[in-house]
């Protein structure tokens, strides 16, 4: 089943088409990757799905239902959660309170305070941040701030999770750990749509990859197919890098 489906999705910034007539889908239980050069429109597409930006034309459906016109909080409550490439967290609040925001306001059915708190601490444990629960988020490393965002997103009990460059800034050993985390989330029954430049992660966990370039979808396929695609190598991977590191 297509849990998420977009048709003719377009976003214009002035005269510039940041996302141009893109058709895409994500099936339930999949881990789908989105790659492409910087400025290709990958984050913009996430912003359209999550209604952080209004779109110019086209439509996006989640479980068959149109998302057009909904507000970001409504989309979250319907079961689509996201993280941000440039973290958007409450820097002066402790880690736990940040995650509690997700559990208190993002879930499909409003949780009691006690349930929300329980949910928040479970999710912190899930991402491995329990020990830092009382730390102010601004005192965390960038990488741990991203984990807080994952926990906050999971605390909204999503069915679909959009991850925007979760692996950025991780060394290869840490990337392996983060890949494990993403698999674990999928094994909980949550579908994953991820933007990522770390090819090791794309190759290792995605079932399918789509490639954006100048706002258009130029390729789609298994990671193996994509990594051998001449155009993708030329515009994105570079000659030596396609093995990933």
């Amino acid at each position, binding site marked *: 089943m297509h849990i998420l489906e977009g048709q003719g999705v377009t976003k214009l*910034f002035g005269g510039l088409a940041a996302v141009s007539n893109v058709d895409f889908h994500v099936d339930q239980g999949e881990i789908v990757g989105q*790659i*492409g*050069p*910087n*400025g*290709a429109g990958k*984050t913009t597409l996430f912003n359209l799905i999550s209604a952080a930006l209004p779109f110019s034309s086209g439509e996006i459906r989640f479980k068959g239902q149109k998302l057009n016109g909904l507000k970001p909080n409504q989309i979250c409550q319907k079961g689509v959660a996201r993280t941000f*490439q*440039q973290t958007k967290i409450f820097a002066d609040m402790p880690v736990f309170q940040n995650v509690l925001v997700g559990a208190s306001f993002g879930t499909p059915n409003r949780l009691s305070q006690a349930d929300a708190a329980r949910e928040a601490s479970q999710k912190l444990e899930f991402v491995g941040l329990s020990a830092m629960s009382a730390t102010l988020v601004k*005192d965390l*490393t*960038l*990488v*741990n701030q991203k984990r807080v965002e994952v926990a906050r997103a999971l605390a909204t009990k999503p069915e679909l999770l959009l991850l925007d*460059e979760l692996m*950025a*800034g*991780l*060394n*290869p*050993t*840490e*990337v*392996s750990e983060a890949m494990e985390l993403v698999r674990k989330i999928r094994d909980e029954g949550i579908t994953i749509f991820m933007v990522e*430049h770390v*090819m*090791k992660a794309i190759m290792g966990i995605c079932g399918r990859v789509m490639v954006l370039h100048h706002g258009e979808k130029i390729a789609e396929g298994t990671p193996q197919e994509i990594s051998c695609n001449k155009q993708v190598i030329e*515009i*994105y*991977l*570079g000659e*030596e*890098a*396609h093995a*990933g*590191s």
Partner: protein
Amino acid sequence: MLEVSNLDVFYGKSQALRDVSLRVDEKEIVALVGANGAGKTTLLNTISGLLRPASGSVEFLGQRIDRLAPHIIMQLGISHIPEGRKLFSDMTVRENLELGAYTSAAWKRRKETLEQVYKIFPVLKERGGQSASKLSGGEGQMVAIGRGLMSSPRLCMFDEPSYGLAPKLFSEVLEVIKHLREEGITILLIEQNVRNTLETADRAYVLENGQIVLEGKGKDLLRDEQVKKAYLGL
């Protein structure tokens, strides 16, 4: 050129750097690798004056700089390209770049340096009048690097230049770094793309829990079993 001796740095009661010593010679590329939370960014922040060490010293070109303000340290010739870009989002690309040249010597040369930056990152010229908030993540990283070059630094410190960059673009940034060294700029580089970084660097230090645990030629560290296991995921 840069001599860091026995630095201890604290955040409140927790110690982030312990007895850290390191040196960078003129025209070297020196890399700093280590897990997240090891103290790499803290070390750069201490060198550029954003943090004060509890003890130890930092000398640059023979002068103690560890009690100087960040803008003075920058005037002496150290440029810091911070993690996470830290752009002025309400300003245009060009304004962000020009701010990198606000010391009077650099300001006089700003047109020329701006052209050099545009040569390295042509897309920034196209986007010169655009608000920095409208840039994609990778374009923002290019502005941050460009801004760091606008002061015509002697020593340029990069904190994870690959962050958010497409693979091809990162290879290009590494080329830029090598090119800068040929132009006479010394490089201190934090980078999680450990393999490419160690291949590029002359020397490297490995930081673990706030301490330097290994130092050596980049290529030798690549073969080190401990490094392979801890940082290369092998």
